[in-house]
């Protein structure tokens, strides 16, 4: 079968077309919004489109966000594939970040062990935090959406409290810890940018999640449970065990993201509300990528670019920063809903006004 006729490639082409069309429409609407809110709309819109590439520094900001969006997107994609709607990535990020910070601020933080140990501990903590809603669901029938959201608030508040009351240097009133020792901060791949180990970790994670899902027995079980839990039970696949393990594994990725945050060059410390809600936007990335791990980084690239561009537009022009929310909302609407490029029938209908038809539409 040639590439051109293989239905899988056809389907992929169709979906890419759809995503691109959604992006174009979102940009169009954004342009209109900019037109209405800015004195110099062309310059502002130009900033949105080109700013991330305006310097090595801004490119680094973009890539840093791509890495983080990729990791949170992967975590969500993994639980979504098992048809579990755990929203707990944000909480796992905070717990992971907290435990990585413990390592970094301990005597070990100034040794070569700091990074590997910090990452490992963060992943374990995230996994444990992801395990809780899974176990509660299997054992007590607790709804994982509710329990994971509550666990998010719990983690954020506890971490913020710990920073303010115990981890911040006493007497300074700061809302963050001291800067970590150099051994506890990712080395820069390009000097003076945020181009650090984070993106490497994200790429490796993509490969790892893809491999786990599509090349291992665990992954196949997870996907079968996601497709039809009653079938899995009938086929002899323990569905609650698989479900719990999926949530735990996703938790480890969440914890890893926490470590990437605090060890990354952007922070190098633990600060209050450090994730700026980015962890939650993994839901969007996973949905647009239709839970496929190899598509997650591609979506993250585009989405991160827009996100960064909008932030820079907010700083460098007179357009209000809320515009980013508008762009986000439109992209979610267009891509997550089954948006299709309007076909011939649509245009025919649009321009055919029959009295009978309008009456019918009113009756509907």
């Amino acid at each position, binding site marked *: 079968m040639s590439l051109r*006729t293989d*239905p*899988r490639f*056809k*389907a992929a082409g169709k979906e890419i077309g759809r995503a691109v069309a959604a992006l174009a429409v979102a940009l169009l609407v954004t342009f209109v919004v900019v037109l209405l809110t800015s004195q110099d709309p062309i310059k502002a819109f130009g900033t949105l489109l080109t700013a991330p590439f305006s310097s090595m520094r801004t490119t680094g900001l973009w890539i840093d966000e791509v890495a983080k969006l990729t990791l949170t997107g992967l975590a969500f994609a993994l639980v979504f594939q098992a048809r579990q709607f755990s929203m707990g990535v944000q909480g796992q990020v905070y717990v992971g970040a907290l435990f990585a910070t413990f390592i970094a601020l301990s005597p070990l933080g100034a040794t070569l062990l700091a990074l590997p140990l910090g990452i490992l501990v963060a992943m374990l903590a995230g996994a444990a935090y992801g395990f809780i809603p899974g176990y509660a669901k299997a054992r007590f029938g607790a709804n994982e959406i509710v329990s994971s959201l509550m666990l998010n608030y719990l983690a954020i508040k506890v971490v913020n409290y710990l920073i303010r009351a115990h981890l911040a240097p006493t007497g300074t009133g700061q809302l963050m810890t001291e800067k970590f020792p150099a051994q506890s901060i990712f080395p820069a791949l390009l000097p003076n940018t945020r181009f650090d180990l984070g993106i490497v970790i994200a790429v490796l994670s993509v490969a790892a999640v893809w491999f786990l899902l599509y*090349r*291992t*027995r*665990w*992954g*196949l*079980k997870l*996907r*079968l449970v996601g*497709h*039809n839990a*009653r*079938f*899995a*039970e*009938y*086929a*002899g*696949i*323990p569905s609650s065990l698989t479900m719990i393990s999926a949530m735990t594994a996703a938790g480890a990725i969440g914890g890893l993201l926490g470590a990437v945050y605090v060890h990354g060059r952007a922070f190098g410390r633990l600060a209050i509300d450090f994730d700026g809600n980015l962890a939650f936007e993994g839901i969007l990335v996973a949905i647009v990528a239709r839970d496929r791990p190899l598509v997650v980084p591609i979506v993250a690239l585009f989405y991160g670019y827009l996100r960064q561009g909008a932030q820079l537009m907010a700083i460098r022009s007179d357009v209000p920063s809320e515009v980013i929310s508008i762009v986000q909302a439109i992209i979610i609407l267009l891509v997550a809903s089954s948006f299709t490029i309007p076909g011939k*029938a649509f245009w*025919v209908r649009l321009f055919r006004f029959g009295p*009978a038809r309008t009456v*019918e539409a009113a*009756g*509907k």
Partner: protein
Amino acid sequence: MVPLIQAKSISKTYPGGTLANDRVDLTVMPGEVHAVIGENGAGKSTLMKILFGVEQPDSGELIYDGKPVGFAKPREAIDAGIGMVFQHFSLVPSFSVYENVVLGAEPRTGIRFDREKAIAEVEALSEKYRLKVDPLPPVGRIPVGQQQRVEILKALYRNARVLILDEPTAVLAPQEVEELFVAVRSLVAQGKTVIFIAHKLPEVLEISDRITVMRGGRTVGEVLSRDVDEHGLATMMVGREVTLRVDRAKDEGPVSLEVKGLHIHGESGAPICQDLNLRVRKGEILGLVGVEGNGQSELIEAVAGLRSVADGAIYVDGKDLLPLDVKARRNIGLASIPEDRIARGLAVGASVAENMVATRLDDERFVRRGLLDLKAIRAQAEQLIGRFSVKVGSPASAIGTLSGGNMQKVVVARELAEQPKLLLVNQPTRGVDLGATEFIWKSITGARDGGAAVLLCSADLGELLALSDRLVVFYRGRIVAAFVNSDELTPETLGRYMLGIETQSPETVRAALK
């Protein structure tokens, strides 16, 4: 006479690459009952969806009432006077019958929904076409046969001239089929045209005037009903001679499955099965007879490990099954063809190959050290697709792209890939066409001849009588009769026990189950 509907050389390829219609022709005369028959996957439903505007053809011409047409969506077909009743109804269960009928085209005075007028119109329609149904109760509370009438009324209310009925008898009991046919005749007598999709041949011959036969996406012929018989139609449909006769088991083997004093309770604690005792020998099929809901399915689920048991014991070759989980039971040679292939037997979104390997994830041939051997999995799928002649693009195709009969073949292929010791079968051919039925029956008797003890449950008495070596009848969770199958045993005899009119003495039951 001028044809009312003419489809000329219609072709349709689905995105998955399946060529569902290949230059199909169909000519329907006004005022006739025109049956379109063919096996599952022959392309009947696709053709009907094209007529009704659900799908668009890739090429070909559609002529309706003398004019070329192309319906972009069902709304346009409905406006043109075509109505379709799908196998799966689209009704709002909590709405009343009349509300469902008028929904979307309500009679109104001003902006107010005129309920009295709606009820009157629905009553008039149901009177006129002999589609008896009470307009007031919620649709969810009336039997399936009446729900179907509501669907037909819905189409008639929208002034349908042509009614497409997609396998209308599949969901009906024998008496309801008779009532449906009365309504169909009354519709035709009053000038309507009916297109009838089916694969049960006696019904087709009884109700239709003309028959178009489809096979493998093509039209193989059009015949007048009075010119053909069942045998001839079956041969046209399948493309070869079909024999739905199977040989009985040859000799008695040792007892393999033994159920002793089994009690099963429902979730509320109410008893579902009480004191079941039965034995199945190696190489024998035991048929579980009974009106649905009398405990047969629950017994099968309990043996499969999908339902807990309140009391009693189940042994396979002397080994106690109850402490074992599903996987362990499968590992000692249990295979199971479940009642509902979509809800339980398959992961519809996953690929054919993944479905076929799902029960053997501990097998060294397919999984080593937790890693999938994709080559071996694919090779096994290809081999099973060939052996069970499943019609599918490739092992990587999603199950959802297959027809019902082919989905069932995937289930059968997976469960019979290796010779089982104990085979549980529930409704093996529900919604499955003739060719596939023949094949599935042969597969089951093949497993039996290979030495499996088989428990067979089916709503189709013909199937039970054709396949079983012995039969037990369930009534209210108890075994009330047992028979050694013979040509003298008739559905009528079984029916009396199924309805609880007669009961055998425990001694007679025990003697038949020795």
